[in-house]
């Protein structure tokens, strides 16, 4: 994809991922012999601009979480490049970095998890949870540490007086705020938000989304926002990437992706979003069969067994992700020709 990116000034980018792969061995039997591979991430190409939110969507198991975790090297990639524009040292390829060198860059990248009920250690006080990253990186001690934790809690809209309490004393929305405070402790540039509001009630969801938007403004943060709720993704994202069985099938501005998609899978997703308007009722596009397994994907275009536009070539050749309009990428042999329907306006 890098050639097509010539038009974008690399100084504007924070991250550029090339052909990223993460394969997990499938182990069977008592001696745990490897009998195959789950190709959870199988050639992901994307870029993220400084200060933007890139939404990452796709069905359960398509590899969103694995992509996010591999990008920040919580998982080691099987193959590919992860170029990160470090504010101090400039461009580095995280995929090739040794663990000890990673220590320098890792603080710039944080993650917020889906489940506010299990992602916080129940035996730690809020003070401990939020201060841990600062202690590990030896960035503050004593009263300075206290002050920083208090400041972080205030930043996420919580009262510092709550510091000595344990997570169970807080509601889902409050726990998610604690998780965010912890993620902010090291002044990160990039935050992977992995389904941060999926487990929350609608009204609490709105509070957390607003908080994330405010923080982005105030602290100049860049987000990769993983979610399966396409309404939330439309609301928060500047651009959106759609994944299907370990690969990106489409990458575009939110507006283009939602209203003039170029990939048949994106079209099916858009038709399926339940619109909160009874005067705009829509019927889903029939998708026969099931999502392909990343352990045993079909030939050619992974979407071909379910695609209503598929032709002979689709089961034979894998379509590459190519730029079909400025900054609009799609992996479909017919991306330029098909007239596809976006979300009903």
């Amino acid at each position, binding site marked *: 994809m890098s050639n097509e990116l010539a038009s974008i000034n690399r100084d504007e980018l924070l991250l550029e991922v090339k052909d990223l792969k993460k394969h997990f061995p499938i182990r069977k039997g008592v001696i745990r012999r490897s009998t195959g591979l789950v190709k959870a991430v199988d050639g992901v190409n994307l870029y993220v601009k400084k200060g933007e939110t890139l939404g990452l969507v796709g*069905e359960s198991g398509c590899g969103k979480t694995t992509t996010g975790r591999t990008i920040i090297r919580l998982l080691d990639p099987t193959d590919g490049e992860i170029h990160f524009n470090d504010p101090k040292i400039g461009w580095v390829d995280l995929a090739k970095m040794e663990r000890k060198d990673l220590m320098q860059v890792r603080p710039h990248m944080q993650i917020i998890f889906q489940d506010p009920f299990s992602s916080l250690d129940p035996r730690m006080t809020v003070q401990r949870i939020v201060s841990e990253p600062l202690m590990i990186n030896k960035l503050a001690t004593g009263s300075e540490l206290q002050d920083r934790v208090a400041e972080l809690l205030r930043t996420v809209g919580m009262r510092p007086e709550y510091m000595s309490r344990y997570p169970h004393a807080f509601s889902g929305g409050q726990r998610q705020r604690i998780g965010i405070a912890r993620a902010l402790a090291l002044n990160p540039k990039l935050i992977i938000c992995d389904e941060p509001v999926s487990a929350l009630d609608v*009204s609490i969801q709105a509070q957390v989304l607003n908080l994330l938007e405010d923080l982005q403004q105030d602290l100049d943060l860049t987000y990769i926002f993983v979610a399966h709720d396409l*309404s939330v993704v439309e609301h928060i994202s500047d651009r959106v990437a759609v994944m299907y069985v370990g690969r990106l099938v489409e990458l575009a501005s939110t507006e283009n992706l939602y209203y003039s998609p170029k990939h048949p899978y994106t079209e099916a*997703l858009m038709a399926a*979003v*339940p619109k909160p308007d009874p005067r705009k009722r829509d019927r*889903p596009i029939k998708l026969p069969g099931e999502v392909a397994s990343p352990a045993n994907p079909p030939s050619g275009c992974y979407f071909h067994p379910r695609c209503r536009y598929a032709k002979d070539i689709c089961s034979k050749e894998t379509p590459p992700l190519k730029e079909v309009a400025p900054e609009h990428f799609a992996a479909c042999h017919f991306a330029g020709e098909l007239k596809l329907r976006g*979300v009903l*306006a």
Partner: protein
Amino acid sequence: MNQSSESTTKSVFEGEDTIIKVRDLHTYFYTDLGISRALNGVNLEIPRGKVMGVVGESGCGKSVTALSIMRMVAKPGKIVQGDITFFRKDKKKNDAIEEINLTKLEGMGPEMRSIRGAQMSMIFQEPMTSLNPSYTIGDQIMEAIILHQNVDKVEAERRAVEILDGVGMANPSLIVKRYPHELSGGMRQRAMISLALSCTPAVLFADEPTTALDVTTEAQILDLMRDLQKRIDMSIVFITHNLGVVAQMCDYVTVMYLGRVVEQATIDDTFYNPMHPYTSSLLRSIPHVGSHQKDRLKPIRGVVPDPYSKVKGCPFHPRCDKAMRGLCDVKVPGLTVVGKSHTVRCFLHSDVEEESTYVQ
């Protein structure tokens, strides 16, 4: 409460016929922490042959309402007050309506069990709660069919395959031989819907039936439920907190807050003319996909009070932007008809007060 004046099935929803009417229902849970007042005077009507959505924040009593009507509330829970009337239509008797007060029946008694099998069923959010892991899908559906429809095994199997086919399951004659764990999430959900529909219920309670599924699977299951609902003319009570799903699925909407119904209206009124401040706040708090708008979301301030506490006055007043001091924090508004097919419980629209709200 005197029921004799309400013995007709005429509905607050214009042109509809009521199949279930709930009056002043209180269901409490007696726990170590105290009394959890899950339902605190629920009043609602379920229209016959229509889809009614039930929405509201987590803990407002959506599931307990369905379980109470089905008489499946288990200890430490108990229905402490109220009436649930089921207007049963008897096809063999020229569609004569029989009025049954479900609260007077024994929850686990033979009558209630027979109603649960033959006229009411429920789909749960987690399919494994109603599918038995040690029997094949086919056996489970066939058992339900044989139990209620007086047919032999061969005919039951034929019908089981037919029902699975009807819910869009590929290869239904193979699927009947499979065990639940051999199916994907979406297939299990379809199997559970088949099981719930095997007795062609008059009322189906669907409790978050698609919340755990991907959008494409969800959309397909919703489409299917809508088709089936039209085909066999059943009433669906669709519990969800996804307002998008409500807009796509339902004819009417019941909005609940803290164990009470605060508004009932047509689907169009709910979205275009909501009258209860809570309903409007809920709608403002969600992103509206397809609107091209990126306006800031407007969360409802504060949180739902816990069900162990007793809120004085209108239960929503601590979070309501329109609360009137000296009124809303003192008196409890009653559910009143405010327009065509529209009832609401709020002093902005009526000065009707409600007397007792907590049973001791």
